[in-house]
């Protein structure tokens, strides 16, 4: 198993999990003794098939779930009942279902929701709404109701709502999985703009979406099974297969050509078509 980097104690990571275990019920261990450190400003991708514990991990980090054992430390503060309200100001999360996280009656209301909770004055609110709706290309929709928006547009509103609160850490929990290809593209464009400025955790089960991240973490059955750079992780074909993750399209191609030369032209063509369509 690869380790991303061993750190000595004097360097502080923005997210630290120490031996975190979480069970929804007795039989079902969603997170099994997970330890993890994430550095400030990184773009980290978490991969895993359905039920591998990705969402549970995300909810532990933002304090929506409390681990049965282990410690969560965000920016030097241990998460617990007393600190959670304060620490939460540093965190933002975008969930999978675009409908179930749209709180406001209009786009503007929705972006304002987090700001209102943070007791930000009206003028500053309007300034930020202006800025971040522009950033996700939703400025002309500010007075629209969610029923009149597409899934991709709703997700971009959710992103603007989180960005407006200017958190240091943003988590995307399969934020694009319910969208059509156009929606995926729009949302991913908005996310790419953030790269480098914020600590970002991008959760997905699509390997292709992980390609340009600084670090890739693979989860299986509540455990971290791979952790490293793209190249390091994607070369571990066996473990990826064990985790029920399909290897990358171009890896498949290379593998196939290595084995059998260019004899299976039709299949190669198919894979190429698929991968260009996905992008």
């Amino acid at each position: 198993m690869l380790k991303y980097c061993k750190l000595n104690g004097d360097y502080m990571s923005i997210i630290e999990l120490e031996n975190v275990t979480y069970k929804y019920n007795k039989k079902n261990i969603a997170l099994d003794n997970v330890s993890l450190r994430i550095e400030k400003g990184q773009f980290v991708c978490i991969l895993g098939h359905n039920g591998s514990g990705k969402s549970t991990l995300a909810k532990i980090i933002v304090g929506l779930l409390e681990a049965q054992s282990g410690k969560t430390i965000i920016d030097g503060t241990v998460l617990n009942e007393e600190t959670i309200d304060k620490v939460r100001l540093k965190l933002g999360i975008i969930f999978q279902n675009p409908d179930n996280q749209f709180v406001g009656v209009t786009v503007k209301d929705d972006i304002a929701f987090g700001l209102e909770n943070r007791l930000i004055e009206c003028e500053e609110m309007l300034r930020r709404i202006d800025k971040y709706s522009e950033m996700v290309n939703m400025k002309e929709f500010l007075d629209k109701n969610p029923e009149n928006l597409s899934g991709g547009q709703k997700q971009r509103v959710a992103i603007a709502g989180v960005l407006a609160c200017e958190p240091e850490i943003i988590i995307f929990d399969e934020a694009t999985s319910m969208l059509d290809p156009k929606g995926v593209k729009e949302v991913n464009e908005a996310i790419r703009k953030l790269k480098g400025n914020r600590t970002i955790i991008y959760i997905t089960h699509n390997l292709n979406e992980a390609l340009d991240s600084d670090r890739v973490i693979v989860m299986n059955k509540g455990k971290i099974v791979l952790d490293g750079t793209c190249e390091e992780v994607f070369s571990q074909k066996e473990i990826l297969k064990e985790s029920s993750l399909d290897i990358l399209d171009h890896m498949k191609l290379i593998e196939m050509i290595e084995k059998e030369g260019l004899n299976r032209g039709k299949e190669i063509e198919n894979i190429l078509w698929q991968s260009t369509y996905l992008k």
Partner: protein
Amino acid sequence: MNDKMVFGQYYPINSWVHRLDPRAKLLSVLILMISVFLIDSIYILLGFLGILFIIVISTRIPIGKFINSFKMMSFVLVLTFIIQILFRKDGDLLITFNFQLTYFSLMIIVVTLLLWLLVSKYIKYFKLLIFLIVLGGLMALQYYTNIWGHIVSYHIDIYSRGLVMGSYVVLRLLGVLVISSLLTFSTKPTELNNGLDRLLSPLKKIGIKISILSMMISIALRFIPTLSLEADKILKAQASRGADFKEGSLKQRIGQIVALIVPMFIISYKRAYDLADAMEARGYIPDNDRTSIYVLKYRFSDVLTLLFDFLVLGLTIFLKVAYAI
């Protein structure tokens, strides 16, 4: 259909009433309603309705919208009027109607009512009016005929007080209807909610947290259209599998409604669960103070409106006292 659910009765124009602060509008409605119930002279009530009429005209909201809301209430209006006339027994006796119920008229009454039950489904317009005419006809039958086996005779006395009180109640209800319609036509539900929230926020001091209630209302406003779209989808899915919500025995229909409610309940529960997570993650803490993106400010026109309301209230109280002496 969708706009109706988002905006309720809201009529999107830009009149002076639309521009008023929702708090001022809510207060006005309260004060004017109190006035309506304090007035106890028909002439003053008519004058009051006249003023309301002028206000309605000045907003340029089509009169038809108001008439529509009268139509919805017309049954209640007619019923209260009839009850007042039948049961008030003071004042001068104006007229006595003597009725004879015979086997002949009883038979006709029963047949007519049965016919009405069958036919009324197909009457689209003036249903109530037609019903009243039919009813009048049946009463006239008992008034003028006395053939074929007399069963019982009875009489209805109409007293002046009953007539007056009946008109009062109807005119008052009309006033209340106009005032409340004016509010809902000119104010979006969200504005109304904001206004109510701000207006009642001082209740926090005595431990009533209105902000949670108004958050609940605003979430409801947000999700009513979404859920009704969902219900629509489920209905269509079930209709495509042969379910029919309009036909079938009572038992079948109940079964079909359950088949709608159960998935709706599960979906809403899942939504509520997700939404609670999303709200909490975005820093919502139910009891805490929040700022609002909608700043409400009383302007000159609001002050003027409120002054006018108090003037009306003062005048009605003055007239009431003066008349009493």
